[in-house]
């Protein structure tokens, strides 16, 4: 008897058996959602599998897409350039066309949040990068500004809602998402004098971890709640 493995894989939305080189870290949020679901199942509590109460959105599939982008290094003096520039690249091609995107959240982890070893204030800026197809040949041009925000550092994890930007997403016209992240150190100049700036920037580069959390809804398994008529 040969178990029809491919049938099961198709059921999961996969084409072939995944063979990951290493397991990606699973964020606490996903583990919590999973544990809550398992506890509810064990207790026999009825569940709506098409609503994720922890995020307050409808959907039955959560995807954590790792950033496949790269750092950009400037040839100018560190004082004259941003502390950190990174092109964030997220491959959206695995999301099937029929699935409806109900949430997209960018996660930026800037290292552990601590009261010790306090650093300067940071200014974060995020741009949409169109035409991610041409990345291989040249440094892409930044498009629309999505965010400019000042944060104290160390800050821990930050989350930004990109739902408005990807509302009209579909996999044919938009197989990937490219963003340009720029982090500037805000200070009175003292940071630049005694080598703190470079130290801060290299620490940021080491600790930066970015991901995109995407929630989709499979209309074959779930139904969108239609608006009531006024």
């Amino acid at each position, binding site marked *: 008897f040969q*178990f029809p*493995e491919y049938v099961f894989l198709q059921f*999961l*939305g*996969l084409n*072939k*058996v*995944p*063979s*990951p080189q290493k*397991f*990606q870290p*699973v964020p606490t949020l*996903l*583990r919590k*959602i*999973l544990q809550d*679901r*398992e506890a509810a*199942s064990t207790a*026999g509590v009825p*569940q709506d*599998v*098409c609503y994720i109460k922890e995020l307050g959105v409808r959907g*039955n*599939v*959560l*995807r*954590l*897409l*790792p950033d496949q982008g790269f750092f950009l290094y400037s040839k100018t003096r560190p004082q004259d350039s941003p502390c950190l520039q990174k092109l964030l690249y997220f*491959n959206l*091609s*695995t999301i099937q066309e029929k699935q409806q995107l109900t949430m997209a959240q960018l996660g930026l982890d800037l290292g552990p949040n601590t009261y010790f070893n306090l650093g300067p204030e940071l200014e974060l800026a995020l741009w949409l990068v169109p035409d991610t197809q041409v990345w291989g040949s040249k440094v892409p041009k930044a498009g629309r500004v999505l965010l400019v925000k000042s944060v104290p550092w160390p800050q821990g994890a930050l989350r930004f809602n990109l739902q408005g930007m990807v509302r009209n997403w579909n996999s044919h016209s938009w197989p990937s998402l490219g963003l340009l992240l720029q982090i500037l150190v805000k200070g009175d100049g003292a940071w630049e004098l005694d080598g703190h700036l470079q130290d801060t920037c290299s620490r940021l580069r080491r600790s930066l971890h970015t991901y995109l959390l995407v929630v989709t809804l499979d209309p074959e*398994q779930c139904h969108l709640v239609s608006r009531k008529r006024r």
Partner: protein
Amino acid sequence: AAVPAPKSTCKNLCHRHQLFINFRDLDWHKWIIAPKGFMANFCHGECPFSLTTSLNSSNYAFMQALMHAVDPQVPQAVCIPTKLSPISMLYQDNNDNVILRHYENMVVDECGCG
């Protein structure tokens, strides 16, 4: 006329059979992060007319068992899941995406005749 009750031992009556599939046995533990396996419980057993009402049956199962007793051409009531629960799976695909997916009605909790 009285309908003769077919003989069934308790062992053969419709009930839930527990079956656990360990993902390690299928080599799927390399990409499925959680759970460790799947409770592939199934329903199996007879639904004799005399016990249809006591085997967690629907009213229709009772009627069908009665009709089958009168006319054997009518199929017997069958042992089916009557209560199912969802599962959530956390796995990793070929693009290093971590995916948490909820599936409705995946695990058989209770069986009955229907």
